[in-house]
């Protein structure tokens, strides 16, 4: 992180209309060309952070002291400007390919469309690009898969198609929101490896949103732990075992382990003070 960061967020707060309290409160972090994990339980606001960065929350009140993506001020940018940024320079991989691919269009056409939306290219060029990218995510026979419909491909392949679509425009920032939760263990590792290799090769900044501590431990450089809309702890992924915050420690202890003792698992005792602000910003 010697060069200037790709993304700089200071005190991001998101308040959904009708909700009594903000869903995300005072979240601050910087992202360089590295892999940042955001973990927390459901409802902790981790996906909301991702969506706020993509400006995909039109009805929520999003405030921040600073939300800068390279030269773009994400708070003040017009929607027209965002259309040029979203999908081209920053993109998002969603959880379940069953719901994020259009069921009535061929997979390859959807990948090519993502390319033609942002780059001036002929259909033939876009097709060639898409096939090359499908090949890069290790889909065998990319020409054949190009013409398949989403229901004809497996979950793992669908997610690789999504990754191809999102990386085709060479973005600088990719937000992966639970990219492998819907996949089997055997497939999960392959997909993560592919994503990881591409992110490293292209020097992309990656935000990995997940509830899975094992995943962020293995595939991220740094981790933010969120609880009730706040970042309670930030540490290097390798130091996860040395976590100080009782919430992080509780999450780690509650995870059953292969070869564990089979004693009752320690249950997380929640402390109301965890929702109070503290100096956990990076």
């Amino acid at each position, binding site marked *: 992180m010697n060069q200037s960061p790709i993304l700089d967020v200071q005190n991001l707060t998101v308040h959904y209309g009708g909700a009594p309290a903000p869903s995300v409160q005072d979240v601050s972090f910087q992202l360089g060309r590295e892999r940042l994990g955001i973990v927390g339980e459901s409802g902790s606001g981790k996906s909301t952070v991702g969506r706020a960065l993509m400006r995909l929350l039109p009805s929520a009140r999003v405030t921040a002291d600073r939300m800068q993506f390279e030269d773009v001020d994400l708070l003040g940018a017009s929607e027209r400007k965002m259309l040029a940024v979203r999908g081209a320079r920053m993109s998002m991989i969603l959880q379940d390919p069953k719901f994020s691919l259009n069921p009535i269009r061929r997979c390859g056409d959807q990948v090519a469309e993502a390319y033609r939306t942002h780059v001036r290219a002929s259909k033939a060029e876009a097709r060639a690009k898409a096939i090359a990218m499908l090949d890069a995510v290790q889909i065998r026979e990319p020409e054949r898969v190009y013409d398949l419909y989403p229901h004809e491909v497996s979950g793992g392949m669908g997610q690789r198609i999504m990754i191809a679509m999102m990386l085709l425009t060479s973005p600088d920032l990719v937000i992966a929101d639970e990219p492998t939760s819907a996949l089997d263990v055997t497939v999960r590792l392959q997909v993560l490896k592919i994503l990881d290799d591409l992110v490293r090769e292209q020097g992309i900044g990656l935000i990995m949103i997940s509830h899975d501590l094992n995943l962020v431990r293995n595939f991220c450089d740094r981790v933010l732990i969120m609880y009730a809309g706040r970042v309670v702890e930030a540490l290097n992924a390798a130091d996860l075992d040395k976590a100080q915050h009782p919430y992080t420690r509780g999450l780690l202890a509650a995870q059953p*382990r292969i070869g564990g003792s089979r004693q009752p698992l320690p249950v997380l005792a929640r402390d109301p003070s965890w929702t109070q602000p503290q100096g956990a910003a990076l």
Partner: protein
Amino acid sequence: MKPVVIQDMTIRFGGTTVLNDVSLSVASGECFGLVGESGSGKSTILRCASMLYKGWTGDVLIGGQSVRSMDPMERCRVLQMVFQDPYGSLHPRHSVRTVLAEPLRIHGIGEQEARMRQALIDVGLPVEFLDRYPHQLSGGQRQRVAIARALILEPDVLFLDEPTSALDVSVQAEILNLLQRLRDEKGFTYLMVSHDLAVIDHMCDRFAVMKTGDIVEVLPRDAILDGTAKAPYAQELIGASLTYEQAAM
């Protein structure tokens, strides 16, 4: 406390054979796991054995009696099922009281109020929750209600279809502890589907690895770590799970 024996279970949906001559036996009081990738037929075994699917061949014996020969009322008092997603398995407009009272009423069991209270106490919920609706409960509390519903007819066998995969780790720990405690207290036989080997390792004595409708291998819990699995797919699955967890070891 009854053993479960599945004999040559086969089911086809259209031209596809989903289960192909599956046989396994679970001792009484044992927790037996079923693992495998999605679409391998794990949940289908539970759904056939509980007669939620009818068009299968083969037989399932619970305590020596065939599930086919039991009438539905009797079957419900022998085996119960807990489903994967507590957001989908509870009726949104039925209060916890309605959910728990219905089986008691159908089976003509008295002392309803006392039994409902006991069921909630058994699963660790306050008795005031009887008058709550599902949207007033968290995911973990909902799954406890689903377990209470399964317990209220005092069955011998519980089928658990991914009981914690829709829940956070912290809540999963509570539910797994609850299931273990109930097995110790009431001597249930569990047949449990999961895609998470760490959960299987924590809960089960033995488990079967499934692939495309076949059981490729039945292994004791220790086989996960000592590498005695022989079937290539079982090795692959165990290998992938261990790699995934590696940094945690």
